[in-house]
């Protein structure tokens, strides 16, 4: 399990090249990358987090995914600080024997990271700045697990 909370950008290619290496029973690797979207003239986004709790929360979520889908490996990278449209915000990767588990576990990770990892996004645009509000559907998404 590899969990990184950082301000620096990352290379998805480099990360995936090294992911799951050394294990011979991996048949599937799934990855997801979240990118800052330009919605209505967004100029930048600042992501705040809760150092300590962030790592702890992601660790719990990833551990549950590892156990539930018997993953061979699992990776979460989440950035904080100032990002601009086109920047990568985060990525998850899962490795398992078969693809169904890898896909499902990746979705589970995304759903939980969205509303159970202590990050908050503030968007800056032509009309000023605004904290991104959590959506009901994000909370509802957890009920399917």
């Amino acid at each position, binding site marked *: 399990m590899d969990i990184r909370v950082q301000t620096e950008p990352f290379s998805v290619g480099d990360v995936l090249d090294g992911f799951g290496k050394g294990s011979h029973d991996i048949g599937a690797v799934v990855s997801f990358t979240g990118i800052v979207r330009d919605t209505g003239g967004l100029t930048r986004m600042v992501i705040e987090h*809760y150092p300590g709790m962030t790592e702890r929360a992601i660790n719990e979520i990833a551990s549950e995914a590892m156990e539930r889908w018997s993953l061979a490996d699992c990776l979460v990278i*989440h950035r904080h600080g100032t990002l601009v449209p086109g920047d990568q915000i985060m990525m998850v990767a899962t490795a398992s024997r078969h693809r169904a588990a890898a896909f499902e576990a990746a979705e589970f990770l995304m759903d939980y990271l969205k509303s159970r990892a202590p990050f908050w996004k503030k968007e800056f645009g032509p009309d000023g700045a605004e904290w991104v509000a959590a959506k009901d559907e994000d909370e509802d998404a957890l009920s399917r697990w």
Partner: protein
Amino acid sequence: MIDVMYFAWVRERIGEPREAVETQAATVVDLVEELKAREPRYEAAFADLSALRVALDQELSDFDAPLDGVREVAFFPPMTGG
């Protein structure tokens, strides 16, 4: 003495990210009431508890949870990770 932390717009309304609070509050709600009685900026931050979440020693918790033995309390809006 409890370390109280604020994040996102809660931090902005209160005007600081953390403070040490001398309190005998039994529960989170009691602590919130004590803070609200202090100054209007706390009143503004804690006006609607349904819009807030609380973590006790870095674990999500509830407003009616006891503060017995808790060292760190954090208040913040619903999280928007991912």
